[in-house]
């Protein structure tokens, strides 16, 4: 489409004196590319050596700064006009004042960061900016591990870590910040030791607590950037809202099985998590990594992307994952990207927000107070692993149905059980004897409860009892030879 670019007076010497030039383009960036292809002498005055628009050069599309739209990807229409306007910089005094505000690097640090320093995109200024910056990581699990390790190695001056868990065997397949020697230790302590070992020149601050609506705002205010390494929806919404309310960028990542997502949610510049997902999925619909599994290397990849975006943000780089959702499939080895848009009706980052303080996120995600939501419905009968064992030892007639998947059955099983995966229980109902008590179990007790609901809906008339805590409880209470996973 033809658009008209107005050339400011001092640059007309490069356009043969023309003050207006018409070019064909679909975006503002394309228009500038066509312009500078046509008049090559202009280029160096608009773009720097890295081919980015010089930071004092402002581009207005029909009187609106494209930085407030989608930058150089802002679409242009037939007949639009583009104005190029400089900002005027101050003098030497300001420059030194600003430089003096940043911490100095010791000779040891200069040596350590030399591979950064020799790149103009980082340089001394960038590395000192890194030293002056602070990042809060929520979680030191699969995502937090590479995030923390790379940020520490890169020289981010102050890293805060929030976690309340202890290191367990099943963490070590992916959480490479912790080691076998750390089993049973608090994750924040194990993570702190590892980060200190990587880089003794930085500060590590540990916060041993669950992130809640009561402590989030206070915690976030003390840091420049927040990195979300959480594994559940309530905390993810909490991190998002607290970031919007405190004006902090939220470096987001999530993982499940072979698939990962990453983005930078920064309400001042673009969409937030709620613009993308206004509502959480119904509870139980999206399984957690504990239920569905995750490829160990996946959080390594997604977490490294989060660390990358964090460092770029500190260095003032363009082309962050703002308004972009990156999807990664490790099994197909494919990256895809979606454009995001700020939702003008977003309840937290929109112009008329309805969420102006933190709320109860467990309730928001439907994980609490279900009784009112699901009225009387028949009550779920439960049994503990110990009781079940006692009933079996007494020789009482009962059958146990395992509703897990066959590959889980291969890992561990309770002897004398019948496998009918959750997705098949209703259609294979006739395989279950309704004349004796039926105990249903899964890994932790959630899927088996669903299976009981499904059987009841399908008209099963026998007595159904849920095994509390699933096979995991069986292993803990009754038979430790049954492997936990």
């Amino acid at each position, binding site marked *: 489409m033809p658009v008209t670019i107005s050339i*400011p*007076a*001092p*640059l007309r*010497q490069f356009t043969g004196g023309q003050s207006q030039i018409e070019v064909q383009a679909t975006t503002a960036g394309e228009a500038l590319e066509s312009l500078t292809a046509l008049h090559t*002498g202009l280029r*160096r*005055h608009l773009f720097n050596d890295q081919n980015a628009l*010089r*930071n*004092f050069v*402002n581009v*207005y599309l029909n009187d609106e*700064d494209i930085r407030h739209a989608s930058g150089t990807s802002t679409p242009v229409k037939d007949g639009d006009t583009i*104005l190029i*306007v*400089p*900002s*005027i*910089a*101050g*003098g*030497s*005094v*300001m*420059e030194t*004042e*600003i430089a003096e505000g940043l911490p100095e690097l010791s000779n040891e640090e200069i040596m350590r960061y030399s591979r950064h320093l020799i790149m103009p995109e980082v340089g001394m200024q960038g590395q000192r900016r890194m030293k002056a910056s602070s990042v809060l990581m929520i979680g030191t699990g699969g995502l937090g591990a590479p995030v923390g390790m790379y940020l520490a190695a890169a020289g981010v001056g102050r890293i805060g870590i929030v976690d309340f868990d202890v290191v367990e065997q099943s963490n070590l397949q992916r959480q490479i910040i912790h080691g076998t020697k750390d089993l049973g230790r608090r994750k924040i302590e194990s993570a702190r030791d590892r980060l200190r070992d990587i880089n003794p020149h930085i500060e590590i601050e540990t916060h041993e607590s669950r992130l809640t609506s009561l402590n989030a705002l206070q915690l976030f205010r003390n840091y420049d950037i927040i990195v979300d390494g959480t594994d559940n929806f309530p905390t993810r919404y909490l991190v998002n809202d607290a970031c919007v309310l405190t004006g902090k960028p939220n470096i987001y990542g999530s993982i499940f099985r072979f698939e990962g997502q990453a983005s930078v949610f920064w309400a001042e510049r673009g969409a937030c998590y709620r613009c993308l997902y206004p509502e959480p999925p119904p509870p139980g619909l999206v399984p957690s990594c504990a239920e569905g599994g995750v490829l160990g290397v996946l959080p390594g990849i997604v977490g490294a992307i989060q660390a990358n975006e964090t460092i770029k943000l500190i260095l003032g780089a363009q082309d962050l994952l703002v308004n972009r959702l990156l999807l990664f499939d490790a099994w197909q080895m494919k990256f895809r990207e979606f454009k995001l848009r700020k939702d003008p009706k977003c309840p937290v980052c929109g112009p008329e927000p309805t969420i102006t303080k933190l709320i109860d996120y467990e309730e928001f995600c439907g994980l609490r107070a279900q009784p009112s939501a699901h009225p009387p419905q028949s009550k779920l009968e439960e049994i503990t692993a110990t009781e079940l064992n006692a009933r079996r030892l007494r020789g009482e007639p009962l059958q146990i149905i395992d509703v897990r998947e066959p590959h889980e059955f291969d890992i561990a099983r309770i002897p004398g059980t019948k496998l009918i995966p959750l997705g098949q229980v209703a259609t294979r109902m006739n395989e279950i004897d309704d004349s004796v008590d039926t105990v249903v179990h899964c890994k932790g007790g959630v899927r088996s409860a669903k299976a009981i609901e499904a059987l009841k809906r399908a008209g099963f008339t026998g007595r159904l009892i849920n095994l509390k805590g699933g096979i995991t409880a069986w292993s803990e209470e009754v038979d430790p030879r049954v492997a936990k996973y």
Partner: protein
Amino acid sequence: MVAILDKCIDEIRRHGASDYPYECCGLLLGSFEPGGSKAVTETYAISNAREEEAKRNRFLITPEELLRGERYARDKNLEVVGFYHSHPDSPAVPSQYDLEHAWPVYSYIIVNTGNDKTGDLRSWIQRADRSQFDEEPVEVMLCNLSS
């Protein structure tokens, strides 16, 4: 070469002195003359009300302010031909930072302000290849014309 009315030089110096120890800044309005020289017949001071903000942004004149100044100039049949700013307690020479944030053709006038004042006022112009600033001769015009 930039020819500048003496009253404009007075205005720049006064602005610099009143904003000391902070930097002052403003636009130079006039006309581009054939042969590459410029005439400055009016100054347009930019408010320093947002000093803190400006310090953070490292820019003294925002594009919005420049656009406003350009509109003002157009109404008076003038053009923005350059900018002035002060260097409190430091010499009237541009910094590397100034160089990276400038365009050719414009005149960049820097005035030294402060206690140890030499009171230097010098004009600089960027080379077309952006490699450096060259000092530009300043010719003072006496204000004896009615406008």
